[in-house]
């Protein structure tokens, strides 16, 4: 696997540990709010000036069927990890559907470019290592905003590091091909977030906070399978 990604990942992991070490708590969920807000500003500048315009251009110049094929290709890899995590969560039946989707779409769907499984009624689902850790009882840990990556927490971020190390694209030996695939995957994700982002822009009084609240609630909802116990109100 790509050594630079590995380096980034381990730097991140070290940063998480360091940050967790100096936890003086202004807020329970977001003890590093000042740092996170600074990172959010960095993100807004870099993303807003470079990444977002590229993603918008990509959406504008690429025909929709092509973009759908690209999304499906990466979505197929997501399905694989969704299946693995459903197994780890003890949901065998759902995992069977996920692996069935991967088998079908990877073969007849040509490397996942066509989502035949959905057309046959095997619905897509989504889960990840962060949710699995949560179901195993790991607390979220402090909230983190990582520039160019987005909202996460110590737990969910750790899940992403696991995913980075194990993802199939990392095992491709042809370095340029691998890097192009990583870049295209990033672009695809960013392009898919454009509409969610415009909702955030419209809705939020304080975008950093709105995003944090929404992220943490959505993740909590997933860990509890859509039936979270009522939240204790802060203060």
């Amino acid at each position, binding site marked *: 696997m790509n050594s630079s990604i590995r380096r980034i990942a381990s730097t991140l992991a070290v940063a998480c540990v360091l940050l967790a070490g100096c936890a003086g708590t202004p807020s329970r969920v977001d003890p590093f709010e000042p740092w996170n807000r600074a990172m959010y500003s960095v993100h807004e500048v870099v993303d807003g000036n470079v990444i977002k315009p590229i993603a918008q251009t990509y959406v504008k110049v690429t025909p929709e069927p092509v973009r*759908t094929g690209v999304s499906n290709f990466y979505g197929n890899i997501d399905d694989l990890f969704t299946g693995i995590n459903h197994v780890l969560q003890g949901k065998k039946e759902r995992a069977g559907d996920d692996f069935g989707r991967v088998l079908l779409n990877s073969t007849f769907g040509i490397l996942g470019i066509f989502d035949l499984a959905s057309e046959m009624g095997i619905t*897509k689902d989504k889960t990840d290592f962060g949710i699995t850790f949560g179901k195993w009882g790991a607390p979220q840990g402090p909230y983190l905003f990582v520039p160019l990556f987005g909202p996460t927490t110590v737990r969910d971020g750790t899940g992403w590091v696991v995913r980075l190390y194990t993802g199939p694209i990392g095992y491709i030996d042809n370095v340029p091909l691998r890097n192009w695939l990583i870049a295209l995957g990033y672009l695809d994700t960013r392009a898919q977030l454009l509409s969610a982002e415009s909702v955030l822009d*419209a*809705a939020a009084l*304080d975008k950093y906070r709105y995003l944090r609240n929404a992220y943490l609630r959505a993740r909590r909802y997933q860990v509890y399978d859509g039936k979270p116990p009522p939240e204790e109100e802060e203060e």
Partner: protein
Amino acid sequence: MIYRWVSILFAAALALTAQAQAQEAPDALVKRVSEDVLQTIRGDKDLQAGNQAKVKQLIESKLAPHFDFARMTALAMGRNWRSATPEQQKTLSDEFRTLLVRTYSGALSNYRDNTMDYAPLRSNPGDTDVIVRTSVRRPGQAPVQIDYSMAKTPDGWKAYDVIVAGVSLVTNYRDEFNDAIKSSGVDGLVKMLADKNKGPTPK
């Protein structure tokens, strides 16, 4: 002759709609309104292109009448709602309504390819407060749960909370609203909302 038939049919249709609105069950209401809005978007190129005036008109005519904005505002403010005067409550509700309508306006044009599934309603006949569960399917994506908290009112069932994938579009504001009130009072919050609503509609 044909005109008379048309007008009789029209009157009958009107009467039926009025009756439907008076007695419609909450889950039937959600389904009817959602399908109606989806159909309208699918059949209108301007809506798909995000023509804001038309989207806003669609929301005002078909969606907004089924929401209880005062209750939504009260819910977003939590215990601070009671500390606001009736005039402040009115202003807050109006501003919050504008904010929510604007938020929806930005999102709605992307709904063309969505299809909705409606979960059977779990409630007892006498219930006056229910949760209607739906999920939205988009091509190539995992479905997203959208739940509507609804209460029975004299003019039919009204939604007072919308929960998208576990995130309430209403209570997600609560801690922000609390802080605004703590630092600059209810009027401070009114001003914050008004300023946000005066800003450009993000595209």
